[in-house]
């Protein structure tokens, strides 16, 4: 009979934690902060297609660092849960706390039952009527949940980033001030010889939950609005921080009827004869 090597449960958990921590620390960081008019999400992300920050529901946003495929599956589950509860009860009955609880249960059971834990660290934030009412939850790979005091950082070197946030962040900041603090905090680590980095607009993924809006409060800030916001320009950012979701193009290259339909055949016939 093959000899089973004994490993203590403590050792197994330690190994899993180490694996998850290393995976998370490899990635770039993200910060979440309350400001006077909402909750700001800023993530370092060079991809504009694979999001680290997303909308879950009317007043709930999601940010994550770590392995994309793992937190993307959790994000999709969160959207499904929120929409299912919102349909069966009412839109007001979907809360960030319930979502954070479900995520924590899920992460916790994966951590103890699976041989490989999820290498993710996530934030579920719900915007309230005032900055004091905002709820920001940190969820870690082992299923623990922390209620954060209006600000949090996650990812590699999160402690150093949190230190900067703790010194500079106030909940009554404007969006431009909060953005400046967030970028300064993210840039405070990872520079050559400990020097602060400057992070360009195209390396940032920025979104807000705007507490002044009714209904869906989540808006991405991209392009010119983001550049203006980084330059400290408050006016255009306050007025137009919005990006509506894109519609897929339906031009000639994307027919909306079957390719075998009569008018398309006619058109292709014309162009061939010309």
């Amino acid at each position, binding site marked *: 009979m093959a000899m089973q090597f004994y490993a203590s449960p403590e050792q197994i958990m330690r190994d899993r934690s180490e694996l998850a921590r290393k995976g998370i620390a490899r990635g770039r960081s993200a910060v979440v902060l309350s400001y006077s008019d909402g909750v700001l999400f800023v993530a370092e992300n060079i991809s504009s297609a694979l*999001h680290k920050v*997303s*909308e*879950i529901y009317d007043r709930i946003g999601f940010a994550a660092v770590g392995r994309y495929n793992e937190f993307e*599956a*959790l994000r*999709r*589950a969160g*959207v*499904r*849960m929120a*929409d*299912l509860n*919102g*349909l*069966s009860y009412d839109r007001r009955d979907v809360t960030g706390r319930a979502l954070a609880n*479900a995520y924590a*249960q*899920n992460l*916790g*059971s*994966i951590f103890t*039952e699976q041989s490989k834990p999820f290498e993710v660290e996530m934030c579920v934030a719900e915007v309230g009527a005032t900055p004091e009412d905002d709820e920001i939850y940190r969820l870690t790979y082992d299923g623990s949940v922390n209620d954060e005091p209006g600000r949090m950082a996650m990812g590699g070197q999160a402690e150093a980033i949190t230190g900067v946030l703790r010194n500079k962040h106030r909940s009554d900041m404007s969006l431009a001030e909060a953005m400046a603090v967030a970028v300064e905090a993210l840039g405070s680590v990872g520079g050559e010889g400990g020097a602060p980095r400057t992070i360009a607009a195209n390396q940032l993924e920025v979104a807000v939950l705007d507490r002044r809006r009714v209904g*869906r409060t989540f808006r991405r800030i991209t392009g010119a609005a983001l550049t203006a916001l980084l330059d400290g320009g408050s006016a255009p950012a306050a007025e137009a921080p919005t990006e*509506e*979701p*894109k*519609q*897929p*193009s*339906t*031009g000639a290259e994307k027919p*909306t009827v079957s390719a075998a339909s009569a008018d398309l055949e006619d058109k292709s016939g014309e162009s061939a004869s010309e």
Partner: protein
Amino acid sequence: MAAGFDPSGRLPDVFTNARTSSFTEFLRIAAPELLPGRRPLPPGMAADLAPHATTIVAISAAGGVVMAGDRRATMGNLIAQRDIEKVHPADAYSLVGIAGTAGIGIELMRLFQVELEHYEKMEGTMLSLDGKANRLASMIRGNLGAAMQGLAVIPLFAGYDLAATDPQRAGRIFSFDVTGGPYEETGYDAIGSGSLFAKSALKKRFRAGLSVDDAVRLAVEALYDAADDDTATGGPDLTRRIYPVVMTATAEGTHRLTDAETAAVAEAVVSGRMENPGG
């Protein structure tokens, strides 16, 4: 949570692994009891069991589309509700109006709203206007069994097509029947018990390239004509200050006219009819 109980605390597999961005497809696996049209019904006609919602009109205008609905729900010869709202935004750029069995209609409309929002959140991009109309058609088709027993729901769908090359013609209207659809309509359309009269009125008065304001007036006129000849359609109720719901979808998104705005339009229509009852 609707789907199963797992003592380990893990989310049911369907939440994390369903290979779909459609909310109705997800419901079919996770909570089929929430889908309308999947409930077994006892045999027999059920048409008089529940209130019916009546007339909706939609008119495409320059740079958008207008949809308006009267406020009456009927149950046989009775008025079930005087101020029901049958025109709703489906998402940021489209509108849906419901005629037929009110309860199923409201349920279908809520589900359709979640369906569009769900896809948008999952994929980070909106469905095309044609995609939205097709989605709604398949949801109507799902209700075919109930429709054959008298619990039919027919929606009217209209929206601003962001992919249209000519913004003047971006307002588009789709109609449906109990077997699905969609059928794209040119210019205008109406559904519900008073639709015959509303469409007759629109046929004489509609001109391509109307301004949005003119289309709003025209929609209220058409509802007045429907209420004039159909007992199940309610006209502007000046004594209770209940006026039609009027919504627009333009490049700026959907917008519901305020009560004061619709009151002004409805009062102008009524005072016009004081002089010429036929309009």
